[in-house]
């Protein structure tokens, strides 16, 4: 591995972190891969979140559910309406509910308070669906959240679903799995539903209304959408999901696990798709039609994507002139998004020089390695010091990342695009390509950078 050499020249990389960083070598792949999908080093300024965070971001977009956080107030406060998931109807999920555990609850246990909290909600609103998030200390103080949920579900005849999400019990990916388990425990009860020809969209959270764009595309090519996880979803839409004949998985990191379970127990096959960039959007739509065995839809998809691509081509071309030769750094949550972004930058004549993810898997990193030019830095669970080092070393012009990366990029005088919860407009589909290109252009070519005094 080349990593040894980097470390020699670069004192800001911790020894324990060496295996998580890769410089792509000349002549293809390194073969032995890199380490990923494991816990962060103690003491690292990690950009990563926890199990609860992972579970919450997946489930939160379910619009008509009560999301009650069982724990001290913080976990509820930090996740209050921050996802940017849009709704077409109910907006209950945009409120923040917490049992706000206090010292006496820590001493005597929080089960009573949880029971009372659910009862207060049930008696006032009688919702069909309630999620109870068990945070770090709930298990430690001995609360049996599952028992409380079971008892009260029976009492009220609705779905009160525990989400096992103590922060320490893994990383954000574990949280995704816990959320998927919670969803399965709901829809699993409806698995004998008769099949219809149509798809579920998995792993799209309707950020800035992206789900609506994709739904519209599918409508255009004659593909029926049964249900969506979890963007703009509701109790009724979720329980319809088992009748779909295909699952399309957009955010693979969070939802492949759910897709696999649905395949196993409901006989619904899945394919991974991405709607970021012209290339991936086009191939995804065609692959969906193919997976459904729908030749008519395939023809439509080909025609539709061709005409859509043409529609935006001129504008994209015009912006491209401003961007050719610029260098991009990517630091996002999952591997699949990183892959799409590398392709998207390539189509703009931009080279990706640093790429990292919080929760990428081995396969993802293999694809990434095959896509990027040699000497590109590939990082798993990077910390700010590493991002800084490599962005400077590789002379990145723009960073694509999330909330914690934005000020870091700015301080370095590097342009930025939020491809996470704070995205300002849809980045998916053909519309998204245009928005993305415009945003990249407006940040990279903003006059403000000229005023920085070195």
């Amino acid at each position: 591995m080349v990593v040894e050499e980097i470390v020699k020249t670069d004192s800001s990389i911790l020894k324990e972190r060496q295996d998580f960083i890769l410089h792509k070598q000349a002549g293809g792949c390194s073969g032995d891969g890199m380490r990923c999908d494991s816990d962060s080093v103690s003491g690292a300024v990690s950009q990563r979140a926890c199990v609860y965070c992972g579970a919450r971001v997946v489930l939160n977009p379910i619009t008509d559910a009560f999301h009650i956080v069982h724990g001290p107030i913080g976990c509820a406060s930090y996740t209050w309406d921050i996802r940017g998931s849009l709704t077409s109807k109910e907006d209950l999920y945009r409120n923040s509910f917490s049992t706000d555990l206090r010292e006496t609850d820590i001493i005597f246990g929080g089960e009573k308070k949880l029971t009372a909290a659910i009862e207060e909600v049930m008696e006032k609103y009688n919702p069909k669906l309630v999620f109870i998030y068990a945070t770090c200390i709930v298990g430690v103080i001995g609360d049996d959240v599952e028992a409380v949920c079971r008892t009260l579900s029976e009492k009220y005849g609705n779905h009160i679903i525990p989400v096992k999400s103590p922060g320490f019990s893994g990383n954000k990916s574990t949280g995704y799995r816990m959320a998927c388990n919670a969803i399965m425990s709901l829809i699993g009860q409806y698995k004998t539903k008769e099949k219809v020809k149509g798809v579920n969209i998995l792993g799209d959270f309707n950020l800035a209304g992206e789900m609506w764009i994709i739904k519209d595309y599918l409508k255009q090519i004659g593909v029926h959408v049964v249900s969506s996880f979890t963007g703009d979803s509701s109790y009724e839409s979720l329980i319809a999901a088992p009748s779909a004949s295909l699952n399309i998985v957009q955010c693979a990191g969070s939802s492949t696990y759910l897709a696999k379970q649905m395949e196993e127990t409901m006989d619904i096959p899945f394919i991974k798709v991405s709607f970021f960039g012209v290339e991936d959007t086009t191939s995804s739509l065609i692959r969906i039609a193919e997976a459904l065995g729908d030749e008519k839809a395939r023809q439509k998809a080909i025609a539709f994507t061709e005409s859509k691509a043409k529609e935006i081509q001129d504008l994209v071309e015009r912006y491209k002139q401003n961007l050719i030769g610029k260098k991009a750094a990517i630091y996002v949550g999952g591997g699949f998004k990183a892959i799409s972004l590398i392709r998207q930058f390539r189509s703009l004549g931009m080279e990706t020089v640093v790429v990292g993810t919080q929760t990428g898997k081995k396969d993802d990193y293999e694809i990434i390695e095959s896509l990027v030019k040699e000497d590109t830095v590939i990082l798993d669970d990077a910390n700010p010091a590493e991002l800084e080092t490599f962005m400077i070393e590789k002379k990145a012009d723009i960073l694509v990342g999330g909330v914690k990366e934005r000020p870091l990029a700015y301080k370095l005088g590097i342009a930025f695009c939020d491809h996470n919860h704070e995205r300002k407009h849809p980045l998916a589909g053909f519309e998204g390509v245009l928005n993305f290109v415009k945003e990249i252009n407006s940040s990279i070519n903003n006059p403000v950078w000229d005023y920085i005094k070195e």
Partner: protein
Amino acid sequence: MLDYTPKEITERKAIVINPAKTCQPVGAMYAALGVHNCLPHSHGSQGCCAFHRMFLTRHFKDPAMASSSSFTEGASVFGGGSNLKTAVKNIFDLYHPEMIAVHTTCLSETIGDDLNALIIDMDIPDGKYVVHCNTPSYKGSHVTGFTNMVSGFIKYLAKKGTEPNGKVCIMPGFVNPGDMREYKKLANALKVPITMLPDTSGVMDSPMTGKYEMYPKGGTLIDDIKELGGCIKTVALGVQTSEPSAEVLRKQCGVEYVSMPLPMGVEATDNFIMELQKISKEEVPYEIEEERGQLIDIMIDIHPYTYGKKVAIFGDPDTVLGIASFALELGMIPKYMVTGTPGAAFETAGKALLEKFGVEDCTVKAEGDLFLLHQWIKNEKVDLIIGGTHGKTIARAEDIPLVRMGFPIIDRYIHSYMPLTGYRGAMRMAELIASALMDYQDSHCEEKDVEVVM
């Protein structure tokens, strides 16, 4: 939005909806960022650290650096001692701070990690410091965490019998860097040498230089904290936030203190200035007299628009009280004052303010939430809401203008650079309040009533 909020108020005992507070550790992290060359460290799951950094970054729009012990299942069973030990070593090796300021979390508190013992047993490199404070998330709020971290610095570093240094210790309260700059300006004008603990100016409002500094120029110097015992006096600003730490310094080093409300509005600023003046015996310079005169001039100009207007104020206890006292000076009626932070002192102080101005029929509540505030407003409307970002949904639902003051403000920029304290801060408050009310009049009055001159 917020269709679920019923007008009818029923008592809630077990559930908080839309909190007006968050948990202790984030306050501790903010305080620790206000010490130069200090890295805040979160002893718990890595999600806590990620959430707090995100929360602070969203408010200040600046990087908030902190590390985490990254608890795993093992740590939650066997204690986090070894995580902390590894973390401290890694942090000094990689990030080179002069000091690590550890705060606990609900998890490390509940499993009973003894931070005193752990730190005593540690190999700390020469000339480096590791300090800590306990911040159980299930007690108090983020404000309490801020206080505890300040006290923690004093407990570890301030020495009894320090040579008198003629300085005054200023404890700023949970305020923005802009306010801390204002304090320094005022102290400087009155020729009072100060040590302010903490001081986040120059850290969370650091200028763009094109270089990323993990430890920006600002922050209280560690040497100055060590010499706090030699101060003439402590001026604790914000009674609920700062008095407990002033008391710690008094007990430990015999430095007497005076504790007063945040210098917001005319009288509170007068009192602060007089306190400084008493110490330095210098005459109040003309620039300050001039500022005060300008403020009163402004208040006279706007009084036809502010007098008798009802306002709902929410946020942190000292901030709410400060805003309320200025609102009363403007002839406004602080109809509702609410904080999520527990503590009877808030209600007592709020009621005393109302009594002083002879204003009746107002509600003051600690440990409330925004759901309750919304219900109050539904029952009796106000003309203006003052608080953080999370008031925006109520403002929209009820068509009431919102003035953003306090913490957190995550949907606007620049606010953290600007003071609300001192005469200049009061001028800014006056401008924000008057403009909001007058903009509302412009956009809501009948067309025939639109006026060019106001």
